[in-house]
């Protein structure tokens, strides 16, 4: 277990061969009484049995090379269990339970940011076997990275550049524009807007932006947390209803870095939901172009995806 530096792309790769041993079947380890959680609980976040990063990583061998650089895999990987109820998911969970989940995300962010080796806290959910989820119990994960991951760095650089040019936050400006045009909005309430972005990379990609400029979960007010819980429930429920299935997705929360320079003036907290499917039974593969060049070809029109999702009616509360 170690991190290895890729000088071709200036990024760190996490080598974690023990992850190959992950259990793929058997009794649910996340249910009360299961391997991981023997007692009943409401919500829980725990350090992954097969982590890519550890608080106390094993030492690494000096490569003795100026070219081949490695480093300790110091970080934290947690499994975040949303509820003890195995047979539910974000779209079917009560907004009340999702609200508690967000409070848990807030606390995990605050706690993990106290480790000075942590630079970026990335909260995410892989839903469905199409994106590698091996356990169907409703859960997500978090990685507390000891570095700023490559795509986060790109976001930071882009948002900084925009601010330097226009002295305004890019997402604040996008929100203003989208509220004027109303072409790509899926759902909105007092505090949040959800839309298929003009620049969507995936078919049915949805973004969730707080309307107020806030750079991380830590800054959300109680009212905003409540509104975010409803937004998450509604948007994920719209996917399931539109496609009449438990629609797979990768949900990713983008917060400002921790133990890092202040970026709060230009970085706007946001959530991306990227479904790997382009239709009920068709995958949108991350193939050579996407993986090799980070250039995406979106085979759908974002305005049409937004319209389809907008028109699906779902219940908002409880």
């Amino acid at each position, binding site marked *: 277990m170690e991190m290895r530096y890729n000088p071709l792309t200036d990024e760190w790769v996490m080598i974690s061969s023990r992850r190959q041993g992950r259990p793929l079947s058997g009794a649910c380890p996340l249910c009360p009484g299961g391997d991981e*959680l023997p007692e009943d*609980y*409401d*919500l*829980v*976040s*725990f*350090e992954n*049995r097969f982590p890519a990063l550890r*608080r*106390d990583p094993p030492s690494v061998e000096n490569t003795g090379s100026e070219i081949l650089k490695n480093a300790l895999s110091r970080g934290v990987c*947690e499994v975040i269990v949303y509820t003890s109820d195995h047979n539910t998911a974000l779209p079917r969970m009560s907004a009340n339970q999702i*609200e*508690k989940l967000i*409070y*848990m995300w*807030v*606390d*995990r962010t*605050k*706690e993990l940011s*106290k480790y*000075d080796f942590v630079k970026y806290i990335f909260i995410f959910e892989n839903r469905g076997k199409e994106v590698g989820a091996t356990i169907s119990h409703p859960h997500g994960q978090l990685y507390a990275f000891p570095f700023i991951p490559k795509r986060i760095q790109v976001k930071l650089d882009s948002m*900084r550049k925009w601010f*330097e040019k226009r*002295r305004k936050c890019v997402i604040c400006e996008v929100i203003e524009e989208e509220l004027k045009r109303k072409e790509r909005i899926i759902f909105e309430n007092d505090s949040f807007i959800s839309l298929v972005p003009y620049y969507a990379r995936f078919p049915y990609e949805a973004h969730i932006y707080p309307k107020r400029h*806030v750079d*991380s979960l*830590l*800054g*959300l*007010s*109680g*009212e905003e*947390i409540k509104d975010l819980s409803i937004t998450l429930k509604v948007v994920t429920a719209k996917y399931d209803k539109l496609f009449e299935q438990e629609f797979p997705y990768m949900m990713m929360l983008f917060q400002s870095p921790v133990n890092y*320079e*202040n970026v*709060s*003036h230009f970085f706007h907290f946001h959530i991306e939901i990227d479904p790997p499917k382009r239709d009920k039974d068709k995958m949108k593969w991350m193939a050579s172009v996407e993986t090799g060049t980070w250039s995406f070809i979106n085979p759908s029109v974002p305005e049409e995806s937004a319209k389809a999702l907008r028109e699906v009616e779902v219940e908002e509360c409880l």
Partner: protein
Amino acid sequence: MVIFRKKFKEGSFTVEEREYSLEWMLEKTHLGWIVSGRVKGKPGRLEMVRFDIPKRLLINNWQSWGPCKPVDGDFRLSGIKDLVKENVETLNIFSPVPDLLEGNILSDYFIVWDGGLLGFLTSEIAHPFFVTEGTEMVGYLDFFETTFEDWVPLEKLLILEGSPVELLLEIYADSVKKESEPEIPVWNPVGWCSWYQYFGDLKWSDVEKNLNLAREFPFEVFQIDDAYEKDIGDWLETKEGFPSLEHMAESIRERGYKAGIWLAPFSVSETSSVFREHRDWLVKENGVPKVAYKNWGKKIYALDLTNEDVLSWLTDLFRNLKKAGFDYFKIDFLFAGAIPGVRKKNVTPIQAYREGMKIIRKVLGSSFILGCGAPLLPSVGFVDGMRIGEDTAPFWNFDMPDIGFPNAYHALRNTLMRSFMHRKFWLNDPDCLILRHEDVNLTLDMRKMYAYVSGALDNMLIESDDLSKVDSEGKGILLESISMRGGKSKVRGVLDGERFIIETEGSNTGNLKIFANLSRDVWEVEGYKVPAASSLIFKDERRKLTRRTEQRADGRLFHYYQEGDES
């Protein structure tokens, strides 16, 4: 704006003068530019930047107690010599370039106005400051009388433009942090200090009495202030009526607190044994020891921190205090280490000061160091906490001269003005909370405002009261202010100077908004009326989730969450 007398232009430049050689460059950075370079020879007071005086600007004094306040461009300081009267040495407290105080605007380290900021990122060799000259403001690096055989780096100057003052100050603070990379402690102290109740009249029985009462308060550190020592400079001997240092520390530690002690390590009084025995250890002027300042009714001299014997003495002093059981050190009157004068080595007063601070940091290791009366920028990286204002006081006086005299009004003003330094330079110490209801000329509103503002700004919280005079309301204010810490704050109103809006995100009690009115008039803001010297607080309604953490046999941490106050 001109830089080193050249038109503002990006690029690299060289200057050859009779007394010195200079190489410098101007580069682009986030929202502005940065000037860096190096110098050799005898640069003296080196002009770096010249620009028109802004209409209204925020100015800053070099050390903890000095004002950080907004002034109009036509303001000029007058009458300071009358205020200090015959104690001209006292001017050393206010500036290492005291000749420039009268008749000018003098701002050390940075100035900021609506749409622009100029700020030096370090003060490791030179003393950086800005001063008015006619209709212009000039930024200097003062290298004093020092001659440099080899190249030494210039203190970098950050130039920002085109954003609100609050954002410019945040970026400045970030840039200072990036330049020096100080370690900011995770532990943010809550404690007790003897000074603002007992001052110099403290008796050991007062300490014991408060130690017994303290168990009803959430203190982590118990700090004995000025009064225990035999003399200024003779720190290891206690005054009559006080037990040994070991006994003092043990009495505190056995009650479960970190033991804290005050001292002024770079100062020696004219009656101290250090002064009597080691006059060669002192900063000199015209061949004799130079009076650094007057206090305690005595002349106080400054230790020459370039003298190896002085550094050995400092090492032994702190080693012995630590050995006695102290683990929290409030080191005060630190500016004395940086007064201009003749020292053993050919270094600037700033370099000398940093030698002393380096030794203290090294000897104390992970113990908590709270700086006070300290030059601000030269201390970055050496202290864990820093007093960022005047001494507070059990009174609030609108009319007192604004030159660092004790006054809760000015102390709270500075706490707000320098809030941007918190967790970037160090932990900010707003000075002690006074929460007693007797022996005090602060209204309940003033006491609350001081405590809540300090809490909302996530500052250190040290109470200074005879705890038998603190009622349940006072205890409640302390608990409330502790719960308001843990967030990130933005302070608006720094160019007003008396009316502030504090917005705190992510505090332990949720998001907060405070209207703090330090003025003598009612303030109408956002549809509310805030009475004079009072505050209004708005708290976010948050659900309570409690966490229980357990560690499994394999070392993994499991965090269980459920709704409610207690799991």
